[in-house]
């Protein structure tokens, strides 16, 4: 049995291409919404930009598939897209470097908002850490915006009193895990480390960001002796992982 009359056969590629473009439009819309929701807590301009980039990538893929369906060679198109991608990466090198530097500095460089730091010729109190830069308030009340890359390239001195005591651990909590239960379980687990920690400062959990996908937290513990920094950080991370695993298992 034949599905289509003969006279329609030449037009089928166009029909398929149209369907692909329609599906592309739907997927691009969904991607735009999802990215927008995921970045709701970030700078609105950045969220809009990321949504546009996400939707554009979907459109590029959809158009290539549609063109392919029409029987037109896509090699040149792919090359052009690849070149545009490389150009975009080169153009966005600095922002990308800063964003990734922020990620690494967050984990490995010991300072946070409120600390007094010196990096290169700059010094001040950290008042904001964003994707691109760390904003310092200098002693003469000036705002100094230091690109995040400097914090992984240069020597950073944290001049806050007893800054050596502080171990900050970033935590991502999945949307299915109840925050109060997690915090309670974590406090119980960390109480076992009490002999190694400064007992005047119990562990502190601070919510940094929330999204439908989950919650970004920072756990801070205070050391009793500086030599145990690495050991304690490893142990704390391990305990965080255990608590997360036990609650993830329970929520399934």
């Amino acid at each position, binding site marked *: 049995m034949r599905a289509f009359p003969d006279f329609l056969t030449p037009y089928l590629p166009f029909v398929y291409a149209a369907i692909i473009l329609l599906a592309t439009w739907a997927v691009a819309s969904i991607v735009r919404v999802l990215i927008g929701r995921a970045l709701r807590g970030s700078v609105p301009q950045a969220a809009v930009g990321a949504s546009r980039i996400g939707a554009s990538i979907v459109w590029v893929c959809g158009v290539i598939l549609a063109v392919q369906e029409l029987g037109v060679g896509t090699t040149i198109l792919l090359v052009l897209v690849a070149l545009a991608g490389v150009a975009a990466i080169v153009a966005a090198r600095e922002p990308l470097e800063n964003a990734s530097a922020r990620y690494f500095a967050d984990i490995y460089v010991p300072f946070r908002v409120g600390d007094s730091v010196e990096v290169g010729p700059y010094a001040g109190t950290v008042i904001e850490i964003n994707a691109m830069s760390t904003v310092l308030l200098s002693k003469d009340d000036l705002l100094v915006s230091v690109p995040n890359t400097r914090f992984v390239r240069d020597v950073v001195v944290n001049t806050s009193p007893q800054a050596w005591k502080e171990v900050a651990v970033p935590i991502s909590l999945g949307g299915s895990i109840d925050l109060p239960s997690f915090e309670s379980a974590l*406090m119980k687990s960390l*109480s076992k480390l*009490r002999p190694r920690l400064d007992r005047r400062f119990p562990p502190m959990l601070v919510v940094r960001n929330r999204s439908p996908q989950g919650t970004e937290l920072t756990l801070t513990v205070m050391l009793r002796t500086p030599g145990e920094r690495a050991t304690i950080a490893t142990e704390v991370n391990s305990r965080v992982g255990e608590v997360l695993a036990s609650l993830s298992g329970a929520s399934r």
Partner: protein
Amino acid sequence: MQGLNICVSSQTPLVQFLARERTARRSRRGEGPVELEALEQGVDYRFSPGGVTRMVYPFLRRGLEGGLLRSAHWVALNPHAPPLARLHGVILHHTSLEHRRLSGYSKTKESLWGAVHGTGDPRGRDELFWTEDFSEYTYYNRATAERIRELDRTNDFDLFYVHDFQQLPTGEMLRTPKFKVFRWHIPFDERTLPADWKPTLVRLLNSYDIVVASSRRYLAAIRALGYTGRTELLYPYLDPEEYGQPARPEIDATCARWGIAAEDDVALVVGRMDPMKGQDQAIRAFERVAQGHPRLKLVLVGNGSFSGSRGGLGLSKSQLWHRSLERLAAKLGVGPRVIFTGYVDQRGLDCLYERSRFTLLPSSEEGFGLVAVESWLHRRPTLVSERAGVAELVSASKDELLIDPADPADIARKMKGLLDGGSRAEELGRAGHDWSRQCWIDSALSEESRLISGAIEA
């Protein structure tokens, strides 16, 4: 200024539900809040005892009626209550705490209470913040903060008003740039606190824009601890219109329930059954006075707090204290003349105040002591513990009215002064009525209004 959206949070709820099944049926019938005005007070629900509910509810109600507030939401722990209820426009959100967490939460609370009041067993107290019990206290505060955050998303509150030490960490957990006020209700003396607690307490207090306390002494101690924000003195308050003057037959009928005869004299102590309230010292002082005043009876009104009530958290501290007081009275030979009434509703209390010669507030520590103000409203003098916040209001006749709660002889001497002083007791009752005006809701409302609207506009 447009009315404000306020979110109040306290551990103690405004009401306790008595007829749970009936309330649950009403709760299931519709999706909206249980309307308390459609229920019967005293049968379906009753107001929680204690100063927090007594002052917060009139403030919210008057605030809504007068336009200071556009909406009022009150989040409180009430495990056996419907999740949502409403009374005169005040929306009550009830949270609960799993039974397995309740014990740890309560132990932590008791420990904090003991440290602040300088009582209880101090062993191991330094380590409180590292105990498993404390993790349940943290759980309760985080769960409350999360509930408030959810409500904020739909109600866009203008400010958060958090009440008392049980909820101190809630402010920091809220992580909002909106205005946060913390009201400290219990005594505060930074010298009685374990040194290791101080950095954490300072951090938690500093998460609030304003800390309000009930006495100059407590505010000075909060600042001495290291709080750097704004502090405000605001005496607890009540609505004098809520306190009636019952007719003689009603007073007699009420007193007859507890065997108080027409020719008896009554010395009244109103307060929950708690060692802190000093009922034992009142009994010891009474024993010294009893022989010379054979018609005098000591009436002890009150049972447990919300924590100790069956409708609340169900702890039994109050029952133990009650029994030990009965034993003490029997041992001192005054058992038949010491009357324990248990919980008495406001109307019954009005009758007892009217019937009394004077009131005693012998607390070893007392955040404020609104019962003294209640007694003054009835023009009855009150012997006030010098350790109570309300002692600040006694601006004259201090030698006659302020008592050392640790010294039963001093209390007895001042009881005799009131009993044998002829019309002096009436004069002091009238003076008390004048002092009570500082705690009337009208003046307090304008102070609250100034505090919150001024702060937000600033």
